[in-house]
């Protein structure tokens, strides 16, 4: 999808003003953190597992080339084919070629953020192939022709009324008098509509939560079972995954899986965790005849060896989103691209450039809640600060702001001058604000007083008073 991250402030404003979004995020913002906390409380080893998960990922990235080659070797030995894609265009082309080779008309899809990243659906549609999203949330937003607003719950910004509206508009053959006002009815309708698509699909495309180097396997984690129907029924299964999904062994995958569902939804384990290795075996009664893996770089290799390498540990669990007061205030669409929330603030500039996505790393109070819940301990605020540092040295910061900081520093390095100026300011503002105790408006402080009052200073500076106190003692 084309980024709109430059319009972050306007997008955020739209999110803050949207009553449907407010209600929807209100439900999510309390539910997810509570459930995660309960799941963590049930597992005494959770903290230790975070450290192990971090270590596994760090080790893998430090040997990523080795593990990718091992992975490819094992996929091939299992009868699969690996395609390497440097960027979005190569990835799209690889998928399209495979689809064309079997004259695919209908393609079912499991949820895949990297497929969003490379804008796969649009590309397939332009080439006469119909992609059908099967994850319920993805299906809903596909009908509404909008992007996902959350990396594991794509339709989290909607209430059931919006879903009903979308279903009525899209499922035109069904009885208009039917009642689909409640979640069970909507789910039942989606199940009935999508089942024939699963059965008719020529190709099934899934993402991968993990790729296992030891065995050449891919692992998908779902609750609905849509990923399994997507990858088992059609003749061809395509896995699309970015490089850093690689994990060395089955045992390493088990450790990361213990962290994933608990961090994402607060479940002990998702309903379906499925490991696939190659196409159907001789004698198998079902399963795809072809198994392809499209490995996507699209900016990951460039992150290795730099300040953002640790971001490659990300498991895409969305714990950081769910706990972020900025995300739960403005929603995912405000971030303007595929990846919202704190992980999006760090990853998006790395993939599409900080000139485009500069706001994302700035719209944070650095509260640190994201880092505290990240299952693999990514130092998200520090990395957002690195983006700010890049913007500063690359002069992407407003000149007045730069100038202000330089002036502040110049004065701050001259304590006596600083103290004199602070005392003047304290006396002036203290005097002006004495009777009301606060300012509704203040010159040069519009950014503050726009949304809150400014309490008046007490009227003297601490250093002036302290100096007086010390003199009085003698």
């Amino acid at each position: 999808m084309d980024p709109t991250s430059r319009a972050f402030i306007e997008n955020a404003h739209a999110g803050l003003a949207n009553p449907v979004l407010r209600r929807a995020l209100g439900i999510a913002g309390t539910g997810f953190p509570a459930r995660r906390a309960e799941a963590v409380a049930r597992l005494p080893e959770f903290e230790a597992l975070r450290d192990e998960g971090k270590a596994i990922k760090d080790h893998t990235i430090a040997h990523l080339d080795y593990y990718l080659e091992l992975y490819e070797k094992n996929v091939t030995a299992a009868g699969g084919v690996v395609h390497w894609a440097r960027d979005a265009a190569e990835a799209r082309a690889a998928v399209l070629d495979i689809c064309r080779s079997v004259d695919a008309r209908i393609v079912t899809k499991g949820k895949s953020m990297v497929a969003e990243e490379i804008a796969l659906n649009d590309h397939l549609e332009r080439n006469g192939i119909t992609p059908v999203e099967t994850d319920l949330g993805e299906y809903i937003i596909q009908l509404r022709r909008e992007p996902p607003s959350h990396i594991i719950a794509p339709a989290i910004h909607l209430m059931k009324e919006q879903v009903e509206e979308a279903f009525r508009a899209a499922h035109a053959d069904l009885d208009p008098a039917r009642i689909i006002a409640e979640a069970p009815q909507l789910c039942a309708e989606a199940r009935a509509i999508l089942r024939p698509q699963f059965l008719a699909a020529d190709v099934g495309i899934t993402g991968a939560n993990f790729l296992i180097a030891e065995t050449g396997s891919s692992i998908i984690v779902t609750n609905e079972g849509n990923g399994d129907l997507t990858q088992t029924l059609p003749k061809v299964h395509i896995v699309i995954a970015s490089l850093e999904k690689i994990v060395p062994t089955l045992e390493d995958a088990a450790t990361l899986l213990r962290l994933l569902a608990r961090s994402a939804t607060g479940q002990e384990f998702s309903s379906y965790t499925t490991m696939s290795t190659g196409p159907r075996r001789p004698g198998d009664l079902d399963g795809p005849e072809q198994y392809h893996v499209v490995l996507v770089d699209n900016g990951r290799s460039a992150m290795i060896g730099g300040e953002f390498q640790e971001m490659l540990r990300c498991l895409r669990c969305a714990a950081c989103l769910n706990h972020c007061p900025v995300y739960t205030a403005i929603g995912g669409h405000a971030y303007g691209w595929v990846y919202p929330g704190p992980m999006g603030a760090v990853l998006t500039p790395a993939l599409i450039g900080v000139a485009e996505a500069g706001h994302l790393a700035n719209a944070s109070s650095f509260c640190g809640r994201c880092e505290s819940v990240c299952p693999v301990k990514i130092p998200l605020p520090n990395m957002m600060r690195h983006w700010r540092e890049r913007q500063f040295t690359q002069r992407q910061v407003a000149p007045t702001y730069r100038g202000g900081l330089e002036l502040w520093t110049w004065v701050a390095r001259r304590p006596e001058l600083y103290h004199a100026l602070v005392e003047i300011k304290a006396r002036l503002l203290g005097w002006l604000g004495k009777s009301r105790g606060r300012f509704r408006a203040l010159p040069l402080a519009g950014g503050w007083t726009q949304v809150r009052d400014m309490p008046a200073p007490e009227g003297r500076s601490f250093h002036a008073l302290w100096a007086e106190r010390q003199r009085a003692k003698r």
Partner: protein
Amino acid sequence: MAEQVRVALLVTCLVDLFRPSIGFAAVKLLEDAGCTVVVPRAQTCCGQPAYNSGDKNDAKAIARQVIEAFAGFDYVVAPSGSCAGMVRVHYPELFGDEPAMLAKAEELAARTWELVSFLADVRGVKNVSASCVGSVTYHDSCSGLRELRVKAQPRQLLASVDGLTLKELPGAEICCGFGGTFAVKYPEISGKMASDKIADIAATGADCVLAGDLGCLLQIAGRLSRAGSTIDTRHIAEVLAGMTETVPPIGVPRKD
């Protein structure tokens, strides 16, 4: 009582300008805990605004001044989790590429503390002699909470204040939306976070909200005031030092 120690007070730029009472409350608490308090004159700012704006050079310049000004004291104490966190956690990060400064930064970091955790964890203070009749609720400022593990200590000390009822704040650990420059660069989002915070505060029924960071307190008091609320806002040090009768809450008219 633990041995007498020399403590340098890191005033913080906000306390200096807006509310010296917090500084004096801190001095009283430290002296009551057996500390000799010195206020180095050559301090102005900890450098956090520059640091969080990505301006490492200016942040380093200010940090060098701080490191020099606070050399030689047993401890450095700030009535602010975010300033203490800047020195304790971020100064070593800032000088990661300068070994000589890094050593000095680490040495300073090791003796730098947020006020309430210093009183409880280092000086072993379990009770204060203050009394204050009323109900309060407490907001956990993010840096203090997550960088410095300030959580139980304020609650322990508040429990010892005669006549005080502490009502736990739902979402106490959720950011109030200050975040330094964030509050003015993204005012609409900051305002929304503040609104959510004051709604939680109001729901407790407490007369007064406390926190350990003046940045948070200006944000919360400013939003409460804009909303026409009568809930008071104070720094926890004012309550622990027994100043609530003599110093008006934040943002309230002064009668002198």
